[in-house]
């Protein structure tokens, strides 16, 4: 709860100050570093239309790196926050944004779109319009799953049943996707695989106009349910005895988590392990169970981790890039292993 004493307030304030500094630092670094080396001065000048700098630099910074960095911030914040929500509601330290089958739903949408139409002329349409239709079908897929989960959660009382249903649904979708892959052409298969690797770079400025409000709405809903999230930590019995309307509260939290994870998955592909690892990092760093601190903490920390992952995946100075999903896995998994080893028993969130 919110029994924050004065000295603790100062400590927490200091911690947030450090995080904010790191966020600015990594954001700047993400703008500076890339396959093309651009001097710091030129990067800064690019932001001022009147300033004299090369048009190429300006295009790279404003049209590519800036949207990508902003997308990284939104992605890290959204995935980490929905991971925190799922870990708390399911009271499971290994729960992440994808336990409800949101990623599976998005994959199914993309698989049906990319692979299902591989024999038709749809490929031409798809490549002509870029990533937006892909994002739309992914969104559609994940939201259909979300509606299904919300519908089930109004009928099923037991939280573990929901968790198991999410896992089963994910497996079923994976099976369908495998069948589609088997029957699809090589080029389509490649398009699908690339989507599953995750990417921040495909989000354009105009897509950001869709991405940002959706994430904003998800974050707002999460803030609205901070108090209930704290109650869920004690388990549903206690939450209920404290006056939480379990079903309503759970639906709003699921809505928020789905909106956050579903939107990111649609635009950037299924990005793993950030959602599981970042909440644990924040719990260790802030030593608190209070979501009033944890919610803003995971938003900022998630953004920092995602910016860092993006910088690493760019392999600064080189022409190639690494799949983003591999980078986040290699960053996230050691954190989780460290958590397990340090805590010995990994019993609770």
């Amino acid at each position, binding site marked *: 709860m919110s029994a924050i004493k004065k000295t603790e307030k100062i400590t927490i304030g200091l911690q947030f100050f450090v995080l904010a500094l790191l966020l600015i630092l990594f954001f700047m670094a993400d703008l500076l570093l890339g396959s093309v080396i651009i001097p710091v001065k030129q990067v800064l000048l690019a932001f001022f239309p009147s300033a004299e700098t090369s048009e190429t630099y300006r295009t790279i910074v404003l049209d590519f790196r800036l949207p990508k960095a902003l997308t990284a911030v939104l992605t890290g914040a959204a995935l980490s926050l929905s991971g925190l929500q799922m870990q708390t509601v399911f009271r499971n330290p290994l729960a992440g944004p994808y336990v409800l089958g949101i990623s599976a739903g998005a994959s199914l949408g993309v698989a049906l779109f990319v692979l299902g139409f591989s024999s038709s002329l749809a490929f031409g349409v798809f490549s002509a319009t870029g990533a937006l239709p892909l994002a739309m079908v992914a969104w559609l897929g994940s939201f259909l799953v979300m509606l299904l989960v919300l519908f089930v959660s109004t009928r099923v009382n037991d939280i573990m049943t929901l968790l198991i249903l999410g896992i089963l649904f994910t497996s079923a979708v994976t099976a369908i996707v495998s069948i589609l892959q088997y029957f699809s052409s090589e080029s389509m298969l490649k398009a699908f695989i690339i989507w599953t690797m995750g990417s921040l770079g495909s989000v354009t400025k105009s897509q950001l106009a869709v991405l940002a409000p959706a994430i904003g709405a998800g974050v707002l809903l999460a803030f609205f349910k901070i*108090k209930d999230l704290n*109650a869920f930590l004690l388990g549903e019995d206690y939450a*209920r*005895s404290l006056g939480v309307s379990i079903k309503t509260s759970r639906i709003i939290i699921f809505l928020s988590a789905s909106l956050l994870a579903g939107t990111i998955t649609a635009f950037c592909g299924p990005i793993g392990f950030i959602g599981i690892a970042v909440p644990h990092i924040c719990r260790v760093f802030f030593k608190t*169970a209070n979501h009033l601190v944890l919610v803003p903490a995971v938003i900022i920390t998630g953004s920092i981790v995602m910016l860092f992952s993006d910088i690493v995946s760019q392999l600064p100075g080189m022409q190639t890039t690494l799949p983003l999903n591999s980078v986040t896995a290699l960053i996230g998994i050691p954190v989780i292993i460290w958590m397990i080893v340090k805590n010995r028993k990994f019993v609770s969130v």
Partner: protein
Amino acid sequence: MEEKVNIELKQLSVGYQQQGEAPLEVLKDLNLSAAPGEMVALIGSNGIGKSTLLRTLAGFQPWFSGDVLIKGRSLKILNARETARTMSFVSTEIVRVPNLTVFDMVAYGRFPYTNWIGMLTEEDQYIVSDAIRKVGLEGFEKRPVMQISDGERQRAMIARALAQDTPVIILDEPTAYLDVSNKYEIFHLLQLLAFEKKKTVVLSTHDLNIALREVDKLWLIAPEGNYQGAPEDAVLKGWLNQLFRNEHIGFDEQEGEFFFKKDFRAKVKVEGQGLPLTWTLRALNRKGYQIVMQAEPDFRVRAGENEWEVILSDKTKKFNSIYQLLAYLE
């Protein structure tokens, strides 16, 4: 004098709504009540529906028919927040939340009163500190709940219920995991809190021998029906013997304790006095020997200060502990 009632169960029928099956009625025709300041123990054999009743009273599940009145108002018309201000609940579940301090856990009790973000006012902080002091956990405020003993954690859970400031506090087996001294302390603490704060404490327990000594009232649920009254009434009216279906468990009205009825192996007559006599009788009873006064015994035992004698058809054998005596009799 007008009788004050804090909680009243009227013709209450509780049970489970099963999916696709007929509802399962666990308990029916419950007519029970308790006054402010009273500690009530709900007793009954395993599986008879104690937890179901407590969960119903806590507002976790709807009841089938009848009514639950708190200070004359039906629990049915209260919303979630109002219920949380009327009933607090301590379950058997052990709370394991890393980084959660005792203070923060007790502060959960203020949940139904705080604003949307859960900010504690100065009054809330005072109530929380006061609850912690009342359960004797002063100085534990900053300790993580995962690093305190079972007894301390149970105290913290009780403090949380206390901070919730409800007329009725319900506890499901609050002494289940505790050692004997903690069991007594928790019972004593609850009774003190009930009396001081004029709250009604309803708890279920299997520690019958302690409950009989400590509680103000029993809600007794037996296979044949349910009763309520002071523990002493229950003894005098013979209700306690109806508690268990098992014919081997009986209630000893003289000793005020439950005991296990055994088939007797042999008759023994014991001589002696004071504590050695008392405990020798108990040991022989435990081993299944029938103690006789008048009838002809199979053998005799003489209990002295530090010496025991067994007299069996004129042969006498001496021992210097009860343990040796029993080993010989085997």
